[in-house]
C-alpha cells in the first residue's frame, strides 16, 4: 500500500467514525469540551475582575502582579503540568484533594495556563478604551463603578476575543493535561476501536496515544474534530475582533 492510499484510507475511515458518532471519539470530544470549557469559565471569572483591578486600581504589588501575568502568558505547559502534579500527588500540599489523574486536575492545570492569557488580553482591551470615554463618565456624574461598567461595555468585543483565545489555547493544549490527567480511557473495546470511553483522555492526548499505537484513522478523526473546533473558535475571535 502506498503512503497516499494509506492516508486516503485513514481519512475515509476517520469520516466514518465521525459520522457514525463513534462512542470512543464522542467521549473524548466530550471530555475535551468539558475540561477546556470549565477551565475557561473559571479562568474568565478570575481574569476579568483581575484585569479591571489592574487597570483601575492603584495598590501595592500591582507591578509585580503585571509581571506575573506577563510571565504567565508564556508559561510552558509541561512545566505547569509538572507543577500541578507535584501539588496534587498524595504527598503534595494539595494531596488531600485526591484529584491525581482526574478531570479536576486537568481543569486546574488549564486554569493556571489560560488565566494569565485571558487577563493579559483583557488588560489590552481595557487599555484600548479611550481615556476620554472614562473621563466622560466622570464628568456626567458617574462613579468609578459606572466607569468600570462603561469600560466593560466598550471593551466587550476585546474581552470576548480574550475568552475565545483562552478556550482555543486550552483545547489545543496537551503537555500539562497529559501529566496531571494521565490520558486514561475506561478499558474495553467500544465499536471495535480505541480503548472504551474516555475518562481523562482529550482530543490532543488521544491523538498522541492513537498515533503511537499506529491507529492512524482514529488519530485523523480526532485531529479533524480538534481542528474544526479550533477553526470555529478562531473564526468567532476574528469576528469579534472585527466588531471591535
Amino acid at each position, binding site marked *: 500500500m502506498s503512503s497516499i492510499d494509506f492516508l486516503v484510507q485513514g481519512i475515509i475511515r476517520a469520516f466514518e467514525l465521525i459520522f457514525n458518532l463513534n462512542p470512543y471519539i464522542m467521549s473524548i470530544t466530550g471530555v475535551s469540551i468539558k475540561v477546556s470549557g470549565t477551565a475557561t469559565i473559571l479562568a474568565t471569572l478570575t481574569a476579568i475582575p483581575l484585569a479591571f483591578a489592574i487597570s483601575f486600581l492603584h495598590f501595592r504589588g500591582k507591578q509585580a502582579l503585571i509581571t506575573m501575568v506577563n510571565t504567565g502568558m508564556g508559561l510552558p505547559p509541561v512545566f505547569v503540568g509538572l507543577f500541578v502534579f507535584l501539588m496534587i500527588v498524595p504527598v503534595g500540599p494539595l494531596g488531600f484533594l485526591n484529584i491525581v489523574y482526574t478531570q479536576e486536575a486537568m481543569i486546574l492545570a488549564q486554569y493556571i495556563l489560560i488565566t494569565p492569557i485571558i487577563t493579559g488580553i483583557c488588560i489590552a482591551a481595557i487599555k484600548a478604551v479611550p481615556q476620554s470615554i472614562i473621563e466622560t463618565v466622570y464628568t*456626567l456624574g458617574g462613579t468609578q463603578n459606572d466607569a468600570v461598567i462603561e469600560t466593560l461595555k466598550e471593551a466587550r468585543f476585546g474581552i470576548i476575543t480574550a475568552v475565545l483565545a483562552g478556550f482555543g489555547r486550552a483545547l489545543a493544549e496537551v503537555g500539562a493535561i497529559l501529566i496531571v490527567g494521565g490520558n486514561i480511557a475506561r478499558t474495553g473495546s467500544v465499536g471495535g476501536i480505541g480503548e472504551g470511553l474516555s475518562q481523562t483522555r482529550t482530543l490532543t492526548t488521544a491523538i498522541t496515544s492513537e498515533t503511537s499505537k499506529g491507529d492512524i484513522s482514529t488519530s485523523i478523526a480526532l485531529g479533524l474534530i480538534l481542528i474544526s473546533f479550533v477553526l470555529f473558535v478562531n473564526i468567532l475571535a476574528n469576528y469579534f475582533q472585527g466588531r471591535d
Partner: protein
Amino acid sequence: MKLIRIDNLYMAFADKEVLRNINLEIHQEEIFALIGPSGTGKTTFLRILNFLEKPIKGDIEYNGMTKPGILDTRRRMSLLFQTPAIFNKSVFENVAYGLKVRGIEKKIVETKVNEALNIVGLDGMEKQKARTLSGGEAQRMAFARAIVYDPEILLLDEPTANLDPANVTKIEEIIKRIKNERGTTIILATHNIPQVRRIADRVGILLNGELIEVNSKEGIFSSPKDARSKAFINGEMIY
C-alpha cells in the same frame, strides 16, 4: 453673586508650569469666557474645576463650600470636551447617561432626553447609533448630554473649534438659550475672539498659565488694562 471662588491656583505637569497664581471669581448665571492662545492652560483649568485634575496648590470654593464633596459637586456641573467622547450606544442612551447614573425614573428620563434633543435640534434621531453622527451633530448630541440634567455650571472647552459656521451659530444659540432659560453659569474656554464678543458677559485672559486680566466684555474690548490683552485681542500677539 459668586458661585465659584478660586484662590492661588497652581498646577504643573512634571517640571512644566501650566497654571500659576490664578485668583478668580465666577458669578452665578454669567457666561465667563476664558481666552488665550492654545496650550496656555485653559483646558487644564476646566479639568481642575471638574475634579479631573488635582491642583498642586490653591483652593476652590463652590457655593461657599471650601471642601466640597467631589461626586456631589461634580453632579452639579458638566464638562463638554472639544472633541466629545461618544459611547457606543444610541443617541437616546448617550443623552440619557447622566440621568441614568443619577437613578432618575425612566419616564422622567424620556421627557428630559426629548427636551434636550429638542433644544439642540436633534429631534427624531433618538434611535440612531451615536457614532454615525456627523461632527456637528455629535457635538450637539454631547451638548444635549451635558445639559440634560440641568447642571448649575457648564464648562465648555472650545465647543465650536472643529465645526462649520452653521453649527457654530447653532451651538452659540444653544449656549445663550441655556443661560437665559435655565440660569446656568457657563465657563467657556476658547481662542475664538469673535465668539467671545457674541456671547460672553465677562472675560479672563490667560497667557502662559497666568490670568493677566479679568474684565467685562465691554471693558476688555474697549479699554483693556494690560497691553498684552490688547495685543491678543487685536491679533497682534505671535504665539
